[in-house]
């Protein structure tokens, strides 16, 4: 299906690390106001794909575009994107608030205070906002990472296993958040191993296996049916 004005384009993306071919020719597009679930076995290349799209690493071959920009070559356009990775990207010696203030400064957000307070409230970190991050529990750290990655309301969001370590209230909050973003016409690409986490909000499902797209369909109606197909796909 041809998509009008795509938010993300990946064309024939290859990426190898030494002997390992993490990505072996990924072709993928997504439009704004899509919520794409990116599934795939461990080591399939999901994280690598996200890092390529974000411009943190360059494809060995192929090209990536986010809102028409190659972020690796064109840093000034990076504000368009938010990446929630496996790492929190914060400083242990600063408090959550200070970490967000720093991020805000780099994003050139003007008058950030109100903004930051809201972001902290959104992940229920208000009461920990002024304690140093060092010693935060895994889930608290993940919440801060979410606030950090989405602070500048980017039109394109890449989420790598965003529900990791979140307790159920926090997970629900994140789902609501994603629902809003979707309504606001953002493009959201979310890596997960448990499609249940975001099934109802997803518009499309993409399965990556061994660095290649094996399945790219509009979200099926029936989750259980899909999970059987998925299991069969991986077994093959």
């Amino acid at each position, binding site marked *: 299906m041809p998509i009008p004005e795509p938010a993300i384009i990946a064309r024939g993306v290859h990426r190898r690390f030494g002997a390992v071919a993490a990505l072996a020719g990924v072709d993928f597009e997504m439009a704004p106001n899509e919520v794409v679930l990116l599934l795939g076995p461990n080591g399939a290349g999901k994280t690598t794909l996200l890092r390529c799209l*974000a411009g*943190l*690493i*360059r494809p060995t071959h192929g090209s990536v575009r986010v809102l028409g920009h190659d972020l*690796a070559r064109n*840093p*000034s*356009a*990076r*504000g368009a*994107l*938010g*990446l929630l*990775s496996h*790492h*929190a*990207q*914060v*400083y*242990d*010696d*600063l408090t959550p608030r*200070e970490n967000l203030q*720093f*991020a805000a*400064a*780099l*994003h*050139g957000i003007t008058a950030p205070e109100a903004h930051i307070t809201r972001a902290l409230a959104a992940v229920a970190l208000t009461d920990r906002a002024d304690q*140093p991050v060092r010693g935060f529990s895994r889930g608290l*750290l993940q919440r801060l990472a979410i606030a*950090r990655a989405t602070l500048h309301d980017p039109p394109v969001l890449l989420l790598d296993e965003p529900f990791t370590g979140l307790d159920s209230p926090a997970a629900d909050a994140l789902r609501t958040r994603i629902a809003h973003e979707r309504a606001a016409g953002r493009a959201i690409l979310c890596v997960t191993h448990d499609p249940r986490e975001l099934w109802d909000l997803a518009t499309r499902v993409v399965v990556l296996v061994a660095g290649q797209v094996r399945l790219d369909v509009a979200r099926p109606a029936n989750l259980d049916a899909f999970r059987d197909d998925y299991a069969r796909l991986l077994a093959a």
Partner: protein
Amino acid sequence: MSVLRPALAIAVKDLRIEWRHRTALLTATVFAVLVLLIFVFSRDAGSVSLATIAPSVLWVALALASLVALNRAFLLEREHSALDGILLTPAPRAALFWGKWLANLVFVLVVQAVAFPLWVLFFNVPASAALVLLAGVAVLTAIGFTAVGTVFSAMAVRTRFAELLLPVLLLPFMIPPVFFATQFTVRLLSDRPAGELWGWIRLLLLYDVVFLMVATLLFPVVVDE
């Protein structure tokens, strides 16, 4: 996006983290003094007078202390791969360099500010106007060290054992300025004509200009893949 604002934000962030628990600063200075000491004790009091080794000791100590200081620069970007966080923002790469460099320079200067007077004290260097000149030279070396060091520590941090790799990369680049500075010091303390001194300062200036430029140019290559 402007360079200045993010650069300052980065420098302030670094210095704030250091300031939070002054451990790094404290240790770097104590380290400098200990290097002074280990020299004194590793010399044979019989054959080598303190005056003769004073210049070498000063510059070797300052060089090693800067090394230690530079190490921390990108180490704190490593935990939770915070560096990615910076690279994901539209802040220009130049801003990252200038910010880091500024923080490093301040840090090294503070260390020098403590170590230098102690050197004067321990080696009974005659207090005179010459010392002001010497302090100026120290600043010049600091500028050069930190320029090169900022680039290298950004490289080193991507590797395991950054703290080990940095010295090897950086020390060769420290040899020329250390050499110039020592020669300058020797002549200054045996108060030779200003003409002789000026030559060495010019060399230091040259080194600083060249490597500040090179560093600024190459830094983006290092941080961007």
